[in-house]
């Protein structure tokens, strides 16, 4: 895959992703995760809240902005609309990005375990 995270979340010429971290934000990550199954805006908010047990909150404005940008970049796609409620699902491109991020997070945890828990053992 030749699409970088920075390319993906480029918002109207403004890089939204934390360039210094070169990663998706937590909110972006959970939105994409919630769209593995078709879901609508408010459903995403509820799903993220449920999965993170209220730790990650996504505001309606933030969600609207991210969904519209993800849709423009074909990271997600709209599959239906009913009563001003659009239902989206993640695309293959979005899934690839999510998996790449997932692998990166695993790598982070793995590196952390090696350093932190290994350090404890040595002590």
């Amino acid at each position, binding site marked *: 895959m030749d699409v970088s995270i920075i390319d993906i979340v480029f918002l109207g010429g403004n890089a939204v992703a934390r360039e210094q971290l070169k990663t998706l934000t937590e909110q972006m990550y959970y939105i994409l995760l919630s769209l593995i199954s078709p879901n609508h805006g408010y459903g995403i908010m509820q799903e993220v809240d449920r999965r993170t047990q209220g730790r990650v909150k996504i505001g*309606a404005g933030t969600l609207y902005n991210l969904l519209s940008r993800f849709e423009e970049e074909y990271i997600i796609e709209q599959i239906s609309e009913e009563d001003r409620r659009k239902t989206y699902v993640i695309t293959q491109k979005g899934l690839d990005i999510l998996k790449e991020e997932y692998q990166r997070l695993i790598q982070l945890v793995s590196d952390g375990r090696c350093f932190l828990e290994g350090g404890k053992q040595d002590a």
Partner: protein
Amino acid sequence: MRKTKRVFWGFLPLDYKAIETYLEEMAEKGWMLEKVGAWAAKFRAIEPQKLKFYIDVFKEGGPFAPENTKEAEEYRNLCLESGWSFITSRDYLQFFYAEGDDNLTSIQTDEVLEQKIVESTLWRGQLISVIICTIFAIKAMSLYFPPRYKFLLSFVGVAGMLLFPLLFISVILPAAYDLIRTLRARRNINRGLPIEKPTLEGARKRMMALHGPTFVIGVIIALAIITDSFFRPQVVAMSLAGPIIGMVIGLILRYIIKRKATDKKDSVLYVTFAILGVLFFSAIANPLLSGIGVGSSYKRDIIPEGYPAITMSDLLEGSQQGTSVYSEFNAGMSPIIPKHYSYLETWDVNGTNENIRVKYYKTIHPRFAEIIFNGITAELREGIKWKDMILFRKTIISDDEMKNLWNVNNLALTEARDEIIIQKGNIVVHLSGNIDFENRHVRELIIDNFLSLVETNIGEI
């Protein structure tokens, strides 16, 4: 008790977060926001209560975007589902409220994203409007620079010359301040610091700093226009016709786009129609109004009381006989020149037409009289530019002997000696026509009529 009230709404767009505090205060006093206009907001009476307000920047809004697009409805619906009720919108800003739920999730939960949207909408919009204002201000200021003596003749001229630079500064300074605030907010984000939320007090100070001088200058210019319209209503009507037509078309256009259109594409069509409308009306209105001619409500055929003057009958020698064919008197005033007029008289003298033109200026200070004297002589020297030609250009000479004889501060003559401009103290007189300026009787007549009235306390320089 009143059910609704309107309050002045002068908050700067970048202070939108401070408005939340203001709306909370208003709700506690029993007033709920209903509608926000360009200059005023409408509130309706409610039971005093604690409410939470949230003002969000909708990136698909804007001055030329319809307020109720499908996208806007979808976004507001999402906000409603998350607990925020929509109140109203104004361009980019969307106003929401919620009844005291402390656990309610904010509409924006990503400061970086929010800041980027603010930069790409409000800040960019403001920058564009400042650039447009600056272009207009420079264009308007270029009309007043270098200052010409004719600006001193009307209230609008004096007000414009003195106040336009101030108006320009009052627009530029807040814009520069906003630029610094935006850069500071961006720096904070980069450093991982929270964005500084503007306080209501700070927002109010900025509002006063921006709108205070603009309001005062606007009132002064409006008063100047009203005063000038007393002397020259058609000139004022002509100069106001363009802006008024443009404003009416703009307001109709805004209403249609904002309230009637539901698709962003519609606005492009309406803006195109509006531009064509303005061009069409300008093409029709200008020749129509020009056809009316530059009149004056103060125009009359005799010289009123209180205006020093000489007439053709004063100048005619005993042997000459004649009858008045035409006469026209136009007066004006300004804070710098409280009395000035132009008088034209044509007589049939022994079968030939003879005429005189008198222009008289009484200023508040000899310095202004000098400016007028120099302005008139420069104007005569330069002539009038018309297409590629220069018309009515005259050679101006000075005659020291004559100046001493007339006992004036400044004196200039055309080479043909058919025009004379004299300045003594705070008075300037410009005479032309069939007048023999070498004639002693004529000289004494002019001195007696005009220059004997020089105010000695300010006139002697």
